[in-house]
C-alpha cells in the first residue's frame, strides 16, 4: 500500500471541497443536504485512511494473522456515520416543513417571499 502515498488524502480533499462547494453554491435545500453528506463522507475516508496499515487486514482477530489495521478510526467513523444520518434526517424533516410553509425549497425564492 505504500505506493499510494498521499493519494487518498488528496482525493479526500477534492471530495471535501466538492461537498462544501455544493453546500455554499446551491440554493436548493435538498441539494445542500446532499452536499453536506458528501462533505462528511470525505471526512470518513480521511479517518479510515489514517487507520490503514499496509499488509494488514480488517481488525477481526484470526489465528495466524498478526498485522491488523487500526480499529480506532473505524469506531470513530461508525459513530460519525450515525451522526451524519441523524443530521440528514433532521435536515430533511425541516426541509419538508419549509416546503409546506413556503411552498418552495429554493433558498432564494424563500427569502424573496418571506421578506
Amino acid at each position: 500500500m505504500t505506493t499510494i502515498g498521499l493519494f487518498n488524502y488528496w482525493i479526500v480533499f477534492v471530495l471535501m471541497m466538492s461537498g462544501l462547494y455544493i453546500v455554499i453554491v446551491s440554493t436548493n435545500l435538498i441539494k445542500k443536504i446532499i452536499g453536506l453528506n458528501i462533505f462528511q463522507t470525505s471526512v470518513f475516508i480521511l479517518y479510515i485512511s489514517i487507520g490503514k496499515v499496509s499488509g494488514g487486514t480488517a481488525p477481526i482477530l484470526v489465528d495466524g494473522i498478526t498485522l491488523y489495521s487500526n480499529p480506532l478510526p473505524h469506531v470513530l467513523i461508525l459513530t460519525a456515520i450515525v451522526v451524519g444520518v441523524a443530521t440528514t434526517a433532521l435536515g430533511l424533516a425541516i426541509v419538508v416543513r419549509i416546503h409546506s410553509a413556503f411552498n418552495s425549497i429554493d433558498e432564494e425564492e424563500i427569502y424573496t417571499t418571506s421578506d
Partner: protein
Amino acid sequence: MISAHLPALQVVIPLLAAPACVVVRQSTLTWLLALLVSWISFAIALTLLVQTFFNGPMSYELGGWAAPLGIEYAVDVVNAFVLVIVSGVSSVVLISAKESIERETHIKRTHLVYTGWLLCLTGLLGITITGDVFNVFVFLEIASLSSYLLVSLGPDRRALTAAFQYLVMGTIGATFILIGVGLLYMMTGTLNMADLAQRIPGVAQTTTVRAGFAFLVLGISLKAAVFPLHYWLPNAYTFAPSAVTAFMAGSATKVSIYLLLRFFFDIFSETFSLRTMRLDLILLILGVIAIFSMSLVAIYQSNVKRMLAYSSVAQVGYMVIGISLATTTGLTAGIVHLFNHALMKCALFLALGCIVFRLNSVDLKDLAGVGRRMPWTMAAFVIGGLSLIGVPATVGFISKWYLVLAALERDWWWLAFMVVASSLLAVIYIWRVVETAYFKTGPVANTEEAPLILLVPTWVLIVANIYFGVSAVDTISFATRAADQLLSTF
C-alpha cells in the same frame, strides 16, 4: 460513594431522563421530570465546582478503562464553572418554559420538546465535562441536533429557515471540528486531551497539526458565533421560541467559548495557539470589530429579539478580546463575562418571553406603552439592559471592569477606550426599547402583566444580576482560579 460518581451522573441523569420522557408521554409530567432533572444536575454541578475548587481536579474513567484507552471525564474549576452556568440557566428557564412554549408553538406533542430540551442539556454538559476530543464531537452533535429542533419550533415560519441555516452552518462547524480532531489524531495517535497536550509539543511544528488547529478553531468559532462566523445566530435567536432563545443564549455559545479556551490553553499551549499561530492578534482585531459592528447593527434592528441576538455576537467579542489578551486578568475577564453574560442575556430573553406571551410580538413598534401595562416585565428588561450596558452594581460592570483592567495592564489604552465606547452603543439600543415602552402610547391598553410563572424566573435572574454585581468576590475567585489553571500548562 455517590460523590465519586458525580461526574458521570452529571451527564447521565439528563441522558436517562430524555428517553424516559418519551416513555412517559404526558406533557405536564415530562415537564416536571425535566425540571427535576435539571435542578438535580444543577446541584451536582455546584457540588463539583465546590469540590474541584477545594480539592483540585477530578477524573472519572468511564467504563473503568484508564485514560488514553477509554474515555475520561476530567473536571476542574474551568469546566465545573461552565457546568454550573449551563445547568443553572436550564433550571431557571425551564420553570417558565412550559407556559411559554405551549403558548408560542403549536406542537401537539409537547413532551417531545422537553425531551429535546433534556437532550440539549445532556449534550452541552457532555461537551463541557469530557476529557476526550472525540467525545466532544459526539456530545456536540447531541446538543446541536436538539437545538436545531428547538429552534425550528418557533412560532414564525421563518423559524424553519433559521433552523435549516443553523443546521447547515452547525454541521459544517462540527465537521470542521471532526477534521481537526482527525488531523491531530493522525499526528499523535490519541484522543485524550491530557495525552494530546503531552504529545503535541513533539509534533507542533508540522503543518498537519497547524492545519488541524486551524480547523478546530474555525469549527468551534462557528459554533460559538465568533464574528464573522456568526451568520446563523441572529436568525436562530430571533425565531426560536423565547424560552429556547433564553436557554441557548445562556448556554450554547458559552460552552463553545469554553471549548475554545480548553483547546487554546490546555491542549495546545498558550504559546502555540496565541503566539506561534498569531491568534492573539487575529482574535483581538476580530473582537474589536465585533463589538462595534454588531452593536451598530443591533441599533438598527426593529425586532427586539434580533437586536439582542446581535448584541450577543458583540458580547462574544468581549470574551474573545479577553482570551486574546492571554493574561490572568484578561482570561478572568473572559471567563467571568461568560457567566455574567449568561445571566443578563438569559434574563433579557426571558423578559422578552413575557412580552411575547402577552403581545405575540417583539417588534419595537408593538412595544409602545408596554412599560405601563407590564411594569414588572419591563422593569426586569430595564435592569437587564443596564447590566448589558455595564452600569455599576450589575454583573455587566464587573466584566467591563476586568476587561478594562486587563487592557490597562498591557498598557493598551486604545483597547480600554474601545471597550467602554462600545458599551455605550448598548445604551443606544437598550434605550430605544425603554423609550418606546414607557413614553409611547400604543394599542396595548388591555394587556395584562405576564403570569407569575414567567415572571419568577426572570426576576430570579435579575436578582442574580444584581447580587453577583454587588458581590462578585466569589465569581471572580472562581474565574481567577480557572484562568490561572488554564495559563499554567499541564
